[in-house]
């Protein structure tokens, strides 16, 4: 499966990972690979399966089909495995009646490589009290406490589910800086799900795009940027382009057509102006492709003439 000569140790390697709840398919046929040391952005519309994927990687849930290898083995309930991963769930679950100090104590008792001092230092720097029940802290402060606790485990893989959502722009910046710093150190790999593409672009070097419970894109951001182009040209037939390249998104106005294409060789037709896309354009392109697909299916289902 892995190409020779391109063999970087993958911290996460899944194939055909599928999670089905009673009627809903939360994640379908998910095959991804995240190399060691990457900060990977997990993006996609709400309900795309981001949380499900992260929970499958932690071992909190078991897959219906397919398999995952994380740090060389399947996610499992095993102290050694659990010590290697840090997970921050979306709802920032902490014991509301216990203080941050209590949580530091809990972590110290349950983890082999616990760095309680780092939590005290981080929270002290942010002026977050250690002796007040975490239920009385603000949402942003709770997120900081939870992140500090997750980092204190000294994991090799950090899985963060929408950690930026509760943070104000300044706190977000500090948070991302802290992540980048942590990742720069000792081979820490991070997967973080978020809707904030501008923020992601600053720190992430890898992208996983889920839409409609399927993987649409997975790879290094640099490669993805190099593989895609925006073509702007007069309104015309796009079949010639589609013959060589994959059209991800097509926007047509009365006068011109804008295409996002995945390249398969150079664009020869001089009628098209070729521009480099930014990450947001690529992400939105793939997301809207999914929505267009849904819309087409819906129209087909109702025999739609509109």
């Amino acid at each position, binding site marked *: 499966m892995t190409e020779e000569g391109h063999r970087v140790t993958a911290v996460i390697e899944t194939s055909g990972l599928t999670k089905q709840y009673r009627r809903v398919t939360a994640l379908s046929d998910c095959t991804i690979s995240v190399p060691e040391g990457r900060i990977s952005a997990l993006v996609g519309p709400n309900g795309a399966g981001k949380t499900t994927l992260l*929970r499958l990687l932690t071992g909190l849930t078991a897959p219906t089909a397919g398999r995952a290898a994380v740090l060389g083995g399947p996610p499992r*309930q095993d*102290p050694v495995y659990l010590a290697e*991963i840090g997970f921050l769930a979306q709802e920032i679950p902490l014991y509301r009646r216990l203080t941050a100090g209590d949580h530091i104590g*809990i972590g110290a008792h*349950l983890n082999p490589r616990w760095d309680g001092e780092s939590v005290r230092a981080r929270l002290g720097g942010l002026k977050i009290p250690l002796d007040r029940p975490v239920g009385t802290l603000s949402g942003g402060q709770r997120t900081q406490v939870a992140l500090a606790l997750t980092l204190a*485990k000294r994991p090799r893989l950090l899985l963060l589910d929408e950690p930026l959502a509760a943070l104000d722009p300044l706190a977000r910046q500090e948070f991302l800086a802290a992540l980048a710093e942590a990742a720069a150190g000792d081979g820490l790999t991070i997967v973080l799900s978020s809707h904030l593409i501008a923020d992601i672009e600053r720190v992430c070097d890898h992208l996983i795009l889920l839409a409609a419970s399927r993987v649409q894109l997975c790879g290094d951001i640099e490669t993805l940027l190099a593989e895609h182009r925006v073509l702007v040209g007069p309104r015309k037939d796009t079949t010639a382009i589609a013959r060589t390249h994959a059209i991800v998104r097509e926007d047509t106005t009365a006068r011109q057509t804008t295409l996002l294409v995945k390249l398969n060789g150079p664009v020869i037709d001089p009628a098209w102006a070729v521009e480099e896309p930014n990450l947001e354009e690529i992400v939105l392109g793939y997301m809207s492709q999914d929505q267009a697909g849904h819309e087409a299916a819906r129209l087909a289902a109702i025999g739609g003439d509109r």
Partner: protein
Amino acid sequence: MTWVTWRQYRFQGALAAALLAALAVVLLIAGLHAAQVWHSALAGCVRSGSCASLAGSHLSLGSSAVATLVVATSAVPLLPGLFWGAPLVAGELETGTNQFAWTQSITRRHWLAVRAGWLLLGAAVLAGAVSALVTWWSGPSNALHADAFQVNRFDVTYIVPVGYAIFAMALGICAGTLLRRTLPALAVTLAGFAALRALTALWLRLHYMTPVTVYYKLTAPVTPTGSYLAISQGWIGPNGQPPGPGTYTFGNEQVPAVCQSSMNGPHSNPLPCLAAHGYRGYVTYQPASRLWAFQGIETGIFVVLAAILLGVTFWILSRRDA
């Protein structure tokens, strides 16, 4: 993990200890009073040589409110199961904190084992302490009324409350794990505990061991000694048949046709007639000497059920999605 458990349950533990202390004060005062009443009554009857009639006398050993409180302690073994057991897993799932707890470097089984272990111990100690107080308090009452084997007394004394508490805790934890929500788990724990307690106290307990049946001449009735557990009593005919049907009743029994004539008159007594016709009285019961065996058997039943429930809990917890 023990430290973690202590950190999270110290307030509940302190509350339980405070309630236990309050109950202890009430029962100590009432118990000392009852003991004093009993000892002076005993001293009085020894002097007058009328101790046989002491049981029939209306000697009051203390306030009926305390007696009611003692009956109410039959709910004590349920409480830890309701308030600590049911939310143990369900509460974590409801707040999502299981995602924090179960991604520390500890398996869910280990997490549950330590927590459930301490809570089971806490429930057992609480129920055992209350039972010890009640057992001590009920000494004079048992001496006077020989009621140690009666429902409402058997159930709140000696070791059975400990078995009940362990069962209620296991049921609460298991229901919470299975249903994933605290409130339905509370309801199931309450209903399950009440149902099993009623089933054992009113029916199953009578049959833990083969009961003893004693036959006696109707003119010389026999009562088993001490605090025995009565199952049935009545008359039995010469061929083993039950008496009746008849027009008259004597006590709770129907007077058979052969002795109907003896029922005419103001002070009618069919017993000599019945005895003459080969009727005997019988009483089927569990002797007082079996009290401890029955306490052990009933405790065992509840503890074994608790072990099964805990086994199911561990199985679900490590297999199902968190």
